[in-house]
């Protein structure tokens, strides 16, 4: 489970000073649930997910992932999470099998267990014909599969997906989503950012809509639909963003 409290992140820029990418966001994600982060480009989704995966340090505020604080024990958190970043982060000059194995070894899994786990994963994702294929020769969909396999090889209780389905065709995207659903059914806590509203609607238990580093609205999909009286989630998203930008214009508070 993930608890985020008043998380702030400012980027230091030598030329322009500081830029606040996350402006005190708070939310909670529970095991067995899929939590969706929505927002326009530059809203701060990637920044938030990077902090949860301990790649970045928060400027202030806390996030607790599976009982460990990102500020105090990031090393412990790293054993608890699987992180799939927005670009299919794959080493070109490794085969699928080598890559997944490498990460398994980084997570200090013992050889037998790793072997069994990998056999299982490759079987389930139908990646056996990719085993000895160099990643540079794979299509985006194949790479994304390898990327997910890499993230779940150590069977982490928390999974963080940043735009897991961007650039995939409908068939592969559907397969990826089904995998995510299955992982949730296994009781994993999943947090997930996306630009595709239909998949969010289908998949997520709770969502948060972000813009300019702030969470505009948060809750279960039914709650939010009720709150805004809008059935279609795409319309809803549009309405939320529009309202916030109107509000912003009134007091005319310039961002940092």
């Amino acid at each position, binding site marked *: 489970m993930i608890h985020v409290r008043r998380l702030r992140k400012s980027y230091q820029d030598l030329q322009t000073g500081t830029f606040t990418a996350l402006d005190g966001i708070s939310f909670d994600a529970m095991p067995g649930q899929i939590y969706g982060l929505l927002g326009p480009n530059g809203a701060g989704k990637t920044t938030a997910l990077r902090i949860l995966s*301990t790649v970045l340090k928060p400027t202030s505020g806390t996030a607790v992932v599976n009982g460990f604080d990102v500020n105090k024990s990031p090393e412990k958190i790293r054993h608890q999470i699987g992180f799939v970043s927005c670009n299919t982060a794959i080493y070109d000059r490794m085969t699928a099998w080598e890559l997944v194995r490498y*990460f398994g070894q980084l997570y200090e899994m013992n050889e037998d267990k790793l072997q069994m786990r990998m056999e299982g994963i490759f079987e389930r994702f139908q990646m056996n014909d990719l085993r000895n294929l160099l990643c540079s020769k794979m299509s985006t969909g194949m790479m994304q599969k390898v990327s997910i396999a890499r993230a779940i090889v150590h069977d982490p209780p928390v999974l963080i997906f940043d735009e897991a389905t961007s650039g995939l065709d409908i068939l592969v995207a559907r397969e990826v989503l089904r995998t995510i659903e299955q992982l949730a059914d296994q009781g994993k806590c999943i947090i997930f950012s996306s630009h595709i509203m239909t998949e969010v609607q289908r998949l997520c238990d709770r969502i948060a809509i972000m813009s300019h580093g702030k969470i505009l609205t948060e809750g279960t999909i039914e709650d939010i639909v009720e709150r805004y009286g809008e059935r279609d989630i795409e319309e809803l998203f549009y309405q939320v963003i529009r309202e916030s930008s109107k509000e912003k214009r009134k007091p005319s508070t310039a961002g940092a």
Partner: protein
Amino acid sequence: MKWSTVKLIFSREMRDQFRDRRTLFTVAIMPLILYPLMGMAMLQVAQFMREHPTDIWIVGGENLPSSPSLIEDGEISRNWVTEKNQKLLRLQGSGEDDAQFFSLIKEFKENPEANTGRTENPGSQLVDRLLEKQMQDRKVDLAIVIPNPIGSPSAIDFNGPQAATSKIFVFHNSAEDKSKIAADRLRVILDRWKHAYVENTLGENSVPPWLIQGIEINGADVADKQGKSAAMWSKILPFVVMVWSLTGAFYPAIDLCAGEKERGTFETLLSSPAKRSEIAIGKLLTVISFSMATALLNMFSMAFTGLFVYSRMTAGIGGMEMGAPPMASLMWLVVALVPISALFSAVALAAAAFARSSKEGQYYLVPLMMISMPLMIIPMLPAAKLDLGTSLIPVSGLMLLLRSLIEGHYAQALQFFAPVCCVTTICCWVAVRWVVYQFNSETVLFRASERFAVSAWVKSIFNQRHDIPSLGNAFLCCIAILVLKFFIGTAAAGIALESFIDLTTITLAVLLAGVLAPSLIMALMLTTNAWKTLKLSLCSIPVACAAAIMAICFHPALMALTSLVMTIYPPIGDMSQVGGMFDTIMGSAPGFWAILLVMAVAPAIIEELAFRGFILSGFERLRNKWQAILLASLFFGMAHSFIQQSIVTAFVGVILGIIAVQTRSIIPCMIYHVTHNSLTLILSMIAPSRVESSPVLQNIIHSPDGNGFEYTTFATVAMAVIACGIMAWFLKLEVQEPAAPAAEIDENIKDVEFTPAESAV
């Protein structure tokens, strides 16, 4: 740090690099192919130069004496050349139209009195042009002209009109290499022939030939063959090894950092349990391996190709003797390669970590080379030798040590082994720390890509002004001061210093235009609060007094440091002469107060405004105040022209920086600086009678060699202790004005408290 993780990362990176064709090409294939190819090309060129026949056009061959004969049967006589070379010299006899050249040359070339300045003589130039054209048309490389009959040695009449020296002209075209080589070759032959001719002449006239020999001077090289080849290899090989270990480190470093950033894999690696230091060390080991492999392969490939090529070119080029590189030298190189590679790899990796993309990384190679090149070139200079001074220079010291090891000067090498080892170890350690720091710094790993547009940048400078300068502004100011000081100083160096007025003018010009102007203009234009930027607020009286006392008390220690630096890096040139000139200039000053004003007070005030004012304020944006102080002192030192002066000045800069940061005022810094400068001046000019008459001064300063005063050891130590006490007091001072962003963060952390109850939904 877990070594199993480091090993895992190392082995993955190694495998990754081995699968990369580009890396393999630069590391392995290139050295193995490059040198043999270069060697082959050299052999080919040499072949071409040696085997090519030379065509020679002879005009007036009939004027040559019959004995000793230069030409026999239309060829150069076998007396003067070997058979092989004889075939290569093809002579062309004179044609019908040669008569006109004959007279032209006779007229313009033969009589040196008639046309003194050869090049200014239009007639002579015209002949040159005509000859050039003729030589081209006839496809000859050389033209030999014998304008007048040269008498046979037996038939010389000492009193006749023949008494003047006979002449032979050899015309060549220096614009063509072939012609130049032919001329050199022919001159040797003509010399031999001439010698025989002179000997014959003397013999005929019963003068013993040895008379013109005079005294024969014999030179001999006592170096043994081994030593000679060692001397040459000891210069070439370390350089090759250095350059290639840097180049060999650079490309893998870029791929390992920037490449990984580009592919986005860095993020996933960082979210895995591998610690950042483990990642850094794993990658560093990979880079070191490749750097060493590249250097070794290049070294061996070059050594063997070189040997092979030189053994084929028997004559040797420029009389260079080549032997096999001594085996011991290769061994020493391999040993020295470990720290060199470690140092260069760490530097390359740290630089590469900063790059956002491979392309950006490539741009860092040239600056890196430019910085390290001087360090590699210093040891190649003829005057460079291993001593305490050079052994303390990072890369150069190691190279010089290597040189003395290869040359077999083990005693000398042993003497400076410790300093070189120390410096190299410190450098490696700092570089490795830097790499780990880079990998821990998220501003380095996740740098936003800034699109650079000049207009937007200029606009942002003026629109986004803050009360204190930005880091970039501070760097800009440093560079402006360095450049301006260099140009004004160089321009002023041409002016003869004759009186005190000259000295005043130049000193003030450099200070006002080179130091004060850039910092004042920048403070006014780039910041909104020049007062705060330049730290112009007043300080309390105790602080001012403390600064003055500290300056007095630190002075002996700093003087001791100066003389230490002077012994390690003795000043080049004759200082006594400069000293004499100094005395006459000072003699023309209106009084000691004027000297103090120009040499102590003015520099102190102006330099403080620039370095502790504008520049340090900008550097204080760095989170760590020590970083800011050190950086500002470094530039403060660099702004002084002599290396000896720079080192001591940088130390003074640190003290001044601490005062400035702790008191937030420039006034105590100025007081310290004025006191320090004045004491230095007083010490150099104080009259001996003054010291003898004062019981106190006698205990503090003495004159060990009757040539200028020094502090006594007791005074130095005692006063340094007091100074350190005052420094401690300064360090304890509350910094009055905490940096703004820090306060903001604290506030936010305070009201964040995580309560479990809140999270239960």
